[in-house]
């Protein structure tokens, strides 16, 4: 069951709520490749995307997830809106509320922005990434991909590598995976992986080959240059040689290990091109599953509003 007004993060969701979303996504997936299976079940629903930060995958897949179900989907081009005149987030939300918007999908550079919006509007709010806090729909599509390939989560060893301290993807995945029984290790240089992350119920490691040993899933994360002030490591060359994953390091993982990445990838830095394009990689599958998961979320939230 998923009975909430909003989807703000995985931290507060139960395992059962997460499974409801994943099971609904399974029903949705066939509709992506086969248009004849699509219906107009969301035709009376109006959805707006409100992206204060750039995005390719998340925004496009939300727009398509709405279109494939017959919803009215609009994008508020934040860069050309009154936000540029200094309109506050709360005022922008109240304005969209008055126009009859049912679901607002927000990405914002500040932690808690989606929560603030949800507190102030009647519409359902979906968090498409808030600061360095959570990116729940990305984690849900990652979970769905793992479920599809591995059949479950209990006892799986999942290693998330890279710029953990700035990563909302790592955090949402950590919350979701631990709730479903997987063992999560966050790994990277000590300046990018704080030991406080252990309070999320995960392991923290700095030795990459050791961390990857016997992993079922290896997830790379992009170094977020846009969120760094002082570089937390000396050079990209040093980073990729000590903390990146290539064919050699991947040998430490299980043979059927999944290689994942939320994209966009800095090729040759967190993952080598051989690994990205290799047999274990499901990076492209993740993209397709992103549409299915977002279709499921729009459907569930719309049903809750009726």
């Amino acid at each position: 069951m998923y009975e909430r007004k909003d989807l703000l993060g995985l931290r507060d969701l139960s395992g059962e709520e997460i499974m409801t979303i994943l099971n609904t996504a399974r029903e949705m997936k066939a509709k992506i490749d086969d248009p004849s299976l699509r219906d107009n079940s969301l035709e009376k629903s109006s959805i707006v995307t409100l992206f204060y930060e750039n995005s390719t995958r998340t925004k496009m897949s939300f727009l398509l997830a709405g279109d494939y179900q017959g919803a009215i989907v609009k994008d508020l081009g934040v860069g050309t809106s009154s936000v540029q005149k200094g309109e506050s987030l709360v005022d922008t939300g109240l304005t969209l509320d008055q126009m009859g918007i049912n679901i607002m999908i927000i990405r914002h550079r500040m932690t808690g922005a989606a929560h603030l919006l949800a507190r102030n509007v009647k519409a359902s709010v979906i968090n498409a990434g808030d600061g360095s806090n959570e990116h729940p729909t990305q984690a849900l599509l990652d979970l769905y991909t793992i479920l599809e390939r591995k059949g479950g989560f209990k006892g799986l060893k999942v290693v998330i590598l890279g710029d953990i301290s700035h990563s909302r993807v790592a955090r949402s995945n950590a919350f979701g995976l631990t709730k479903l029984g997987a063992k999560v290790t966050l790994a990277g240089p000590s300046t990018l992986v704080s030991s406080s992350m252990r309070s999320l119920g995960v392991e923290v490691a700095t030795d990459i080959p050791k961390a990857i040993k016997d992993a079922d899933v290896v997830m790379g994360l992009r170094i977020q240059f846009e969120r760094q002030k002082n570089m937390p490591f000396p050079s990209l060359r040093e980073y990729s040689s000590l903390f990146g994953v290539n064919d050699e390091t991947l040998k430490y993982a299980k043979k059927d290990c999944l290689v994942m990445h939320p994209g966009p990838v800095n090729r040759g830095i967190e993952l080598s091109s051989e690994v990205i394009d290799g047999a274990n990689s499901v990076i492209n599958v993740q993209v397709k599953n992103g549409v299915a998961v977002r279709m499921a979320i729009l459907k569930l939230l719309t049903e809750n509003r009726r």
Partner: protein
Amino acid sequence: MSLIHIKGGRIVDPANNIDKVSDLCIKDGKIYSLEAPTEKADKVIDASGLVVMPGFVDLNCHLREPGFESRETILTGSMAGAAGGYTTLCAMPNTDPVTDNEIVATYVKYKAEKEAVIRVLPVGAITKGKCGEELADIGRMAKAGVCALSEGDRTVQNAALMKTALKYSKMFDLPVLAYSVDTDLAGKGSMNAGDAAALLGLKGISADSEEVMVSRDMILAGSTKARLHLCHISTSGSVTLIKQAKERGVDVTADVTPHHFSLSDEDIVDYDANYKVNPPLRTKEDIVAIKEGLKNNIIEVIATDHAPRHIDEKNCEFEKAENGIVGLETAFALSFTNLVDKNVITLSELVKKMSLNPAKIINSDLGTLSVGACADVTIADIEKDFVFDKTRSFSKSRNTPFDGKTLKGKILYTISRGNVVFEKGSIKGECK
């Protein structure tokens, strides 16, 4: 002139080691006697079952005038102070224009004398425009009557300049109220760095950002022999450092705010910016150390750091929201509830930390009920629970995380310079 008879209260006056049930008479603005009057009083206050204390002195509050009157004014801040049992407020210089010269200092004094319901004393900035580049007109401000020096919401990052300021201020016997934080280490955090920040996904402000600067300032106070007072210290490490400096003989005092021992970083919920404050709410372990520091008198003063903020500065993204909590009206109740009622310190020790000790730091003879002293008196009920309701606040701003909290230690009367300015929820007859 007027005669006020306070009947049968528990008089708590740490300056004279008094804690006993007695009458108290105020005549012509002065404490007259600790007996019933022989002549008919103009006003009789039945204080049986209540405590009668010297009026509180706040070393650190932001009254926002001139410049930021949408948040607070000297008048509304003084009303909030009176409602909280305060009779003297030291107003921080982070105004616009900054209180960095005798003209602005004189203006604050003039407005205070004309409008404030209690005593308001200006604090002068350490550097011009609090830019941390050159000394403000410290000597001329001293002549104009500033009670202390401080950068308000900033730290003088340049150690050489801070040293010069400490040396120079000593000539005028002005204490330097330091807000100690290394801004590079603090970075762009918006709450305490630690497990709670990791859970919420907010960038943290580490304890070492405070401790590094607390150390620096105490080393400089030691080498200059100046008087340093550390404002709103918040970490266990700072308490230890202050203890060590005192043992070395450094002339240092320190205060803590009621919110820093009443709430921890784990209390921050749903990105509610009313919990956003600088220094940030720290861990439960820090609270234990702070209470220990209060108990052992390593921390001599409780100050509010009353920081009014407009609703629009708080009802926004947590990371964008301004820092600050209004504190004047909850300080005594939070301190009584969390310190005295929980047997951390005695009532007499609390009263000392809120009146006599801060008064001494600003070289004032206030904070006592000695016969002949200025009649600044606060009367409170420490028996009954009450629910704090922010809508009944006298401050212009309502940025408090304590709305709806059940507390003990309600202020019933505040007498400033012999006049009853606050009585049972109303300021000079004006109710909220």
